[in-house]
């Protein structure tokens, strides 16, 4: 592949196959020596080569290799489980068990009285869920969460993809500037991002209202303007991930393809829609799913920017709602039931993702 090195361009983004380049740089000594020893130029040369071609390149080798492969491929007995043990212990104890507990609590009567041991816990069956589903506020919050997350995902993807394409159109200096600004936004902790955006849009001291001539319009007072403000902050801090990833993906698309399209007179939009988007499909799937997961779980921004869910809870999303139910009003079982609902929704998203992966014929 052509784009093995980044050339003279000081862009912070190495091409998609940078991981290999980095691997090579880092472990240069060992890797190069071994590769040279094995007379294995294919592994060095093939830019895009992921594991599969590396594997293929290592095919016809010395006699002993077959034995070594067999030795490993049979599974190595307990070795993989030994390597996995720490991860499984940690995940089992701090992820699986809490999920089980969450489900359990959602079926119990669990309030302050039970926490302090004053009253025995009692089994409620689906009682908590019945309470929850009978509550209008729950449905309202659920709807708000879905719409808000969808708006965040769509905006983030649109901004991220547009800027990724823009990055490929400009020379090094503007590219570096945009890249650095985006990395800065990415690096900003959610809580500081929230407070800064609040100050920017502050009715009294913020510059935005001055520039836009909005007087002392309060963004956090109205339901929709408050959501819009949070949305802006969320897009600001999450588009860089999309932009950087998609940009890396575009860089890996062979030049000829794009040149051919341009020569055929395709417009930019057409190139994106008919050439880039299909080629980048796997990457787009990943960033879309990641965005859905992140935006569905927004907590800090809502909590800080709307001061715990807005006036009379108008800006609650499921996450904050569950937190308020559990820790502000000690209705732990209701909070858990909301948590279970969230889990199930995200599980559904995951299953869709897995199907998409399967359809792409990816080997896990």
């Amino acid at each position, binding site marked *: 592949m052509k784009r093995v090195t980044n050339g*003279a361009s000081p862009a*912070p*983004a*190495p091409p998609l196959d*940078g*991981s290999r*380049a*980095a*691997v090579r740089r880092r*472990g240069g000594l*060992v890797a190069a020596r071994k590769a040279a020893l*094995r007379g294995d130029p294919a592994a060095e040369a093939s830019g895009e080569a*992921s594991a599969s071609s*590396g*594997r293929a390149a*290592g095919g016809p080798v*010395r006699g002993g*290799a077959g034995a070594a492969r067999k030795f490993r491929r049979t599974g*190595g007995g307990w*070795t*993989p489980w030994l390597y996995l043990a*720490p991860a499984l212990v*940690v*995940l089992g104890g701090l992820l699986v068990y*809490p*999920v089980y507990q*969450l489900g359990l609590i959602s079926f119990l009567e669990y309030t302050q009285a039970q926490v302090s041991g004053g009253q025995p816990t009692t089994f409620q069956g689906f009682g908590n869920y019945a309470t929850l589903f009978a509550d209008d506020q729950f449905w309202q919050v659920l709807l708000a969460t879905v719409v808000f997350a969808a708006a965040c995902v769509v905006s983030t993807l649109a901004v991220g993809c547009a800027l990724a394409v823009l990055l490929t*159109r*400009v*020379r090094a200096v*503007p*590219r570096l*500037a*945009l890249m650095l600004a*985006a*990395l*800065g936004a990415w*690096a900003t902790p959610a*809580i*500081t*991002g929230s*407070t*800064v955006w609040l100050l920017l849009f502050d009715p009294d*001291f913020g510059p935005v209202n001055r520039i836009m001539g909005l007087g002392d319009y309060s963004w956090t007072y109205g339901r929709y303007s408050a959501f819009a403000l949070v949305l802006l902050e969320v897009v600001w801090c999450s588009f860089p991930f999309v932009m*950087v990833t998609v940009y*890396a993906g575009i860089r*890996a698309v062979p030049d000829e393809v*794009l*040149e051919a399209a341009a020569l055929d007179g395709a417009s930019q939009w057409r190139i994106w829609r008919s050439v880039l988007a299909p080629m980048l499909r796997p990457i787009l799937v*990943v*960033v879309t799913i990641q965005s859905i997961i992140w935006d*569905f*779980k927004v907590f800090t921004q809502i909590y800080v920017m709307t001061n715990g869910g807005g006036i009379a809870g108008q800006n609650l999303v499921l*996450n904050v709602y569950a*937190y308020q139910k559990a820790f502000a009003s000690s209705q732990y079982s209701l909070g858990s039931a*909301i948590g*279970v609902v*969230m889990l199930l929704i*995200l599980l559904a998203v*995951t299953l869709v993702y897995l199907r998409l992966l399967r359809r792409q014929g990816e080997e896990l």
Partner: protein
Amino acid sequence: MSSSNAVRSAGRFRVRRPWRLAAEASALMIAAVVAFPLYWMVLSAFKPAGEIESTEPRPWTLTPSLDSFRRVFGQQEFGRYFLNSLVVAITVVVVSALIAFLAATAVTRFRFRFRTTLLIMFLIAQMVPIEALTIPLFFQMRDFGQLNTLGSLILPHIAFSLPFAIWMLRGFVKAVPESLEEAAYLDGASRTRFLWQILFPLVFPGLVATSVFSFISTWNDFLFAKSFIISDTSQSTLPMALLVFYKADDPDWGGVMAASTVMTIPVLIFFVLVQRRLVSGLGGAVKD
């Protein structure tokens, strides 16, 4: 810049000149807009009190002052909060990187029963909303006697950064040619030796990229700190210290911005240090 050079780095398209200039102008403008909140944060941190609370905000200050920073560092044990945050984040990064490295090796270098099932489980685990687990974790930490300790922050964060780290590291471990492993065994290296002396250095850039995510999610954590550190404020972390200045009705904006600046800078430094590897890491994670 010579024109041929310019065309090459301008991208792969022969973009006509006016269009390219327009694109570059908008790129610079967008960069300015994106960077503006950070600029405003630092600026406000240095503004004297009178200027922040002015109804005519100006995008510069002629009399920078350190008052806000003094207030922040003068706050009880702010240094301690900073240290706590650092200890938690670094512990999580190191421990989860090691555990994830081992696990990623297991699922990419070996074929065994339940391998695919495990991978799917890791993927699903990645989706679990940690916020939803605050409730059971709270009781679990209480039963472990970990409430009000840094352990109550470290343990869950290790668990929550693992699935993504394993998933991402997979690509890096995969990228190391298997022939290398065979060569090592033929040369008489043991499995452990191969793991730590050959594979580990090769995968290290991937570990760095991965660690960005665990560092950030831990450093930024607000919910666990708020929920698990309830009475012993000496165990608090930075987000809580920041909120001291932020009261909904009458926030001390200077203090909030100074504390925000202090909290953002370590992450920025970390990002700048690892950004090359981060980008390649994303490529690696996404590609396979």
